[in-house]
């Protein structure tokens, strides 16, 4: 068959018809030994989705996933660990299904470097893994240096960020439970762009709800460098309805950037926070520092002066190095928020791009989506939902669509959104890890 007719034939009848194999047929396994090797670094939301969908789209390639931890704890719903609705165990997932159902080699080891010329990955354990295509999804790292007095050590001991679910999430929970009656919780979100733009406001909301029950005179103070935040209209409406926001007795207060909300320094001994509008003392301080691409992305050389990884948007290929895709929080993705849903969407595109390139298909027309639900209260949800397209080389929202939850007088809307959130997490983790 000539090339063009082979391509047309594949389009019409599917790759399996040409290859003569089913998705996981025996001959596919045999072919794989000689086949292209796709190596994925980071088994978080982006990397795990990439492993699964690369297999779904490419029955014949070899796939290896390298992740430093034997299990992954999802950040989504970790705010509810702080308030006791979930445990970290409830949010922990392993790599067994990815290994067995999708025939992925999983290496639990820390990646220490990549040689892009030899197309080889090095791990702390001394393994060398060569690749034809590399997909990198290392998540985020923190710019501690932008807040004087704040360090990784302070975050682990006195003023947790808890922006990666794990021990700091539990520290924050213990601190909340130990808060003196009538105490103050101070939460400081960062400047854009950062992981999970609605996350700090969901956390503030759920802590406020918990305090209303357990520590009714306590207050939550948000010090923000920004004047707007995602879903701020429905968030504030929810705060009004649930916590008296905007009144003298509000349980929650939000100081915007123009009101001097930007945090300049912290003193962990005195538990004080200096913002542009003055000095604040609090009993619990949750600093969510400004962010940058995950350390591994820096080590490989994928980051530019913005602190994030520039990519060709249509393929999520690094513009710094050949044969490497960067996805998830580390990648520059314009109008898309740094969310798990976005990372999952990037991964699916890359699975299609890899198939197109390895099998000689036409270039992929990209499409992306993101929906983020947040809780303003346990039974009060708000959402933002968008579909994205490539326009003028950038990822942009499809015009006249999507957007945040409308504020209505229908009490069913926020209640239903909270039900949707719960449904979403259960389904989402299966789409990622199984």
């Amino acid at each position, binding site marked *: *068959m*000539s090339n*063009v*007719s082979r391509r*047309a*034939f594949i*389009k*019409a009848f599917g790759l399996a018809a040409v290859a003569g194999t*089913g*998705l*996981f047929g025996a001959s596919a396994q045999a072919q794989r030994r000689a086949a292209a090797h796709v190596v994925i670094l980071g088994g978080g939301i982006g990397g795990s989705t990439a492993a699964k*969908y690369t297999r779904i789209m490419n029955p014949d390639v070899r796939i290896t996933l390298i992740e430093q931890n034997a299990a992954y704890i999802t950040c989504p719903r970790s705010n509810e660990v702080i308030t006791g609705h979930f445990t970290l165990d409830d949010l922990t997932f392993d790599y067994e299904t990815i290994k067995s*159902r999708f025939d992925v080699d999983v290496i639990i080891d820390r990646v220490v470097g990549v040689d892009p010329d030899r197309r080889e990955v090095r791990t702390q354990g001394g393994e060398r893994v060569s690749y034809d295509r590399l997909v990198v999804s290392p998540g985020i790292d923190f710019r501690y240096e932008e807040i004087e007095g704040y360090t990784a050590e302070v975050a682990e001991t006195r003023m947790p960020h808890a922006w990666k679910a794990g021990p700091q999430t539990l520290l924050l929970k213990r601190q909340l439970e130990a808060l003196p009656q009538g105490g103050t919780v101070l939460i400081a979100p960062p400047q854009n762009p950062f992981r999970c733009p609605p996350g700090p406001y969901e956390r503030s909301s759920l802590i406020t709800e918990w305090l209303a029950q357990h520590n009714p005179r306590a207050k939550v103070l948000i010090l923000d460098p920004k004047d707007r935040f995602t879903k701020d209209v429905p968030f504030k409406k929810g705060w009004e309805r649930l916590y008296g926001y905007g009144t003298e007795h509000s349980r929650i207060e939000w100081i915007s950037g123009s009101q001097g909300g930007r945090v300049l320094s912290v003193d962990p001994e005195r538990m004080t926070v200096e913002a542009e509008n003055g000095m604040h003392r609090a009993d619990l301080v949750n600093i969510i520092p400004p962010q940058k691409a995950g350390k591994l992305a820096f080590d490989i050389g994928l980051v530019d002066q913005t602190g994030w990884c520039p990519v060709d948007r249509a393929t999520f290929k690094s513009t710094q190095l050949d044969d490497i895709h960067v996805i998830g929080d580390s990648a520059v993705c314009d109008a898309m928020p740094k969310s798990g*849903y976005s990372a*999952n*969407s990037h991964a*699916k*595109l890359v699975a*299609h791009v890899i198939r197109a390139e390895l099998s000689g298909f036409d270039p*992929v*027309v*990209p*499409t*992306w*989506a993101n*929906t983020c639900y947040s809780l303003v209260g346990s039974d009060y949800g708000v*959402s933002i*939902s*968008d*579909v994205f397209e490539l326009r003028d080389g950038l990822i942009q929202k*499809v015009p*006249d*669509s*999507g*957007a945040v*939850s409308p504020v209505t007088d229908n009490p069913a*809307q926020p209640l*239903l*959104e909270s*039900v*949707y959130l*719960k*449904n*979403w997490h*259960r*389904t*989402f983790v*299966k*789409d990622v890890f*199984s």
Partner: protein
Amino acid sequence: MTSRQYLGLSLVLAALALQPAAARDIASGELLGQNCAACHGTDGREFNEAMPPLAGMETEQFIRAMKDFREGRREGVVMDRIARAYSDAEIEAMAAWFASRPATQYGSEEHE
């Protein structure tokens, strides 16, 4: 023309005939549909309280639901907002892809 060339040509023509009109401008139904999976499950095969399964849905039913959401004839929690992003051709491409997925719980049997 040899019979092999003839076969090749007729396959090309058959394939072209199967392509939807705007195939070059829109993403494939598969990639569009996979972006729904984060809520509706892999291949649209999750049976849940809020987000309904999409796998195995009749194409006309899928198309009607999406257009009703898009044009405000049907209330949604989020789908009304999302549906406004999709053209007729995209909705049709997704409909065809979801119709081709088995309407059974994802993971209930191992992959064929």
